[in-house]
């Protein structure tokens, strides 16, 4: 990995609400990966959430309010990067649509859209990172989170980088592309259906023989880890960025401080 220009691109890190509250270590891993690739990373304090909970609840007015906040907060950065396909797809794909009837904000939303990327695909596709310096002993399996996969085309990128992690072996699970049942507020509005979907996912993870589950979206990972723990499964759960940054030596999701 090299930093081609002395002062690399200036990145505004989109600190997703789940990452901010539940797993700051993913944020620090993202910063490390971006800085290692020569970027300057800043974390604007005026950010909260991309507005997806409102968007998917049909409350477009609140979504627009939050979208404007994000658009203004991240004006001026070369790129806006976040460790979540779901949040970044909202910013990239949904924001411009939200302002379809508002030319002024539409233009700003489109400008932000062009500059916004999901972390793992940004590393490979924009920064052309083709390897990381990290070590992780064990077999992992990868869950393709739906928004990243279908809205942003994130599939090969994380696998490409994970293949360069020393000691790591990838064992693909059956139906890696099938939804885990998280779906944002879906998982609390329809907990029974969500539980069944999560159980199917857990069964596939188990059958892969992997000791660790990786993914690129904390919502899905929290859902799967939560179901896995409830079922008493020993499989560990990390965000892929933590492994790629060599920062997966602490507790995984839903694990106690000292193991």
């Amino acid at each position, binding site marked *: 990995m090299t930093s081609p220009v002395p002062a690399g691109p200036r990145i505004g890190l989109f600190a997703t609400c789940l990452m901010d509250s539940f797993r*700051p270590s993913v944020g620090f891993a993202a910063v490390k990966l971006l800085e290692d690739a020569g970027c300057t990373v800043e*974390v604007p*304090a005026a950010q909260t959430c991309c507005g997806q*909970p409102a968007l998917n*609840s049909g409350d477009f007015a609140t979504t627009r309010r939050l979208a404007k906040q994000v658009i203004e907060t991240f004006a001026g950065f070369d790129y806006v990067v976040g460790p979540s396909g779901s949040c970044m797809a909202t910013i990239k794909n949904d924001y411009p649509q939200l302002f379809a009837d508002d030319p002024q904000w539409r233009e700003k939303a489109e400008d932000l859209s062009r500059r916004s990327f999901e972390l793992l695909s940004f590393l490979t596709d924009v920064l052309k990172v083709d390897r990381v310096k990290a070590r992780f002993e064990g077999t992992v399996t990868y869950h393709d989170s739906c928004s990243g996969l279908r809205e942003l085309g994130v599939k090969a990128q994380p696998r490409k980088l994970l293949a360069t992690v020393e000691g790591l072996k990838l064992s693909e699970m059956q139906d890696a592309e*099938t939804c885990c049942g998280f779906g944002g507020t*879906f998982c609390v*509005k*329809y907990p029974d259906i969500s539980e069944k979907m999560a159980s199917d996912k857990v069964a596939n993870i188990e059958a892969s023989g992997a000791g660790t589950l990786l993914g690129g979206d904390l919502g899905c990972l929290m859902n799967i880890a939560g179901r896995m723990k409830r079922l008493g499964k020993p499989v560990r759960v990390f965000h892929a960025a933590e492994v790629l940054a060599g920062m997966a030596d602490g507790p995984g999701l839903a694990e106690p401080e000292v193991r």
Partner: protein
Amino acid sequence: MQVLSPQFKPRATLALKDASLQAALGKARGGFVDKRAAAAAELPEFEQLREEAKAIKEHTLDHLDFYLERFEERVKAQGGQVHWARNAEDAQRIVLEICRKANAKTVTKGKSMVSEEVGINEVLEQEGIEVIETDLGEYIIQLAKEPPSHIIAPAVHKTKAQVSELFHAHHSKLGLTKVLTEVADLVNEARQVLRGKFFRADVGITGGNFLVAETGSSIIVTNEGNGDLTQTLARVHIVTSGIERVVPTLDDATTFLRLLARSATGQETETYTTVSSGPRRPGDPDGPEEYHVVLVDNGRSKMLAGRFREMLRCIRCGACMNHCPVYGAIGGHAYGWVYPGPMGSVLTPLFVGLDAAYDLPNACTLNGRCQSVCPVKIPLPDLLRELRHMQHEAKLSPWYQRAALAAWGFVASRPRLYHALTGLAVRALGWLGRGRGRFGYLPLASAWTKGRDLPAPQGKTFQEAWRERRGKSS
């Protein structure tokens, strides 16, 4: 058909606990998905066909009046009749009148979702007419007195053992008393029973997968040949079809035929593709004496002018439900009306009301897999979200959800307040959960903790930790 969509939640919960339903669903799921994927992969121009099909539909919808009138003209020129049904009652009345005029005692039916939608069977049965569904799946559920649970595999929720029991119970009366356990034997017995009915039928009713404006033809596809027997052996053939099923030319129809079978069942083509153009002509060896097409609007022209116009591209292949993880978990009956799965979750609220079908657009994770396999690229997740928007505007969502959303929206638009509150909450939860790293139960989060643990936060928010490490650099 009775609308049970308001009971979506309890019906979904029952479905999750129904062991034989789960067994049937588990079997179906893999088959449809793998076969479609293989069929799509084998055809290099599959993606291009999807684009073409979408364009043909869009063009046709732009000029729907023109193509429908042209279709009518061509049907009439061939000696057939076209009837326009504004709504379900119209459609029922028209079909009933044709059957009365034909002095019908027995009516055979090929599979038609439109006839389910407008409720043809009930009306004919009230008149004392014997109605026989001839598609094997439809026949099974007719015996079981159940509605279809899938638009192309209506009895997909039944296991082999259940079908065996059902046949034994009904066919014993006909002297077929052996209990059958092999699929081939069950199919043969159904054929045996149905064969006599085909010959006795006065009227045969089929759907129309496509209506061709250029030739005035209706096209049906089946895998059992039951549609052909239905429409050629009866004296009168009635096609019931939605107005959106018209395509300009035969050539256009072939584009759809190539997509339909691959998307639906992963076949290159269905076993039977039958084109009907008018009644029997002098010299024809067979065919009906009368050919009627009932064009059903029932809310479709309203869709044409509105935000759900793209839904009119739907060719009823069922790929969206085959790939829907929610459908895969609960099956089709939980949706409570004719059309289940993603396409049904868009259509049902438009047909029966945003309120009665409140749950359908909401019981979706917006994972987008349906859109990715839709042969005509309908943006189903966007349409479902649009329905949620309409429900939100009409204040149909539960009050506590709207209150929670409003409170969250208030805080999230005030970054300082937001960070102060999340900082406190994360600190408290992190401290409480530090021992186990997770919560098995948490007040106010019981919907989450009902079936899964909640991972504990790491003790500080990222914003807080970042500013401690890096100072107030940004």
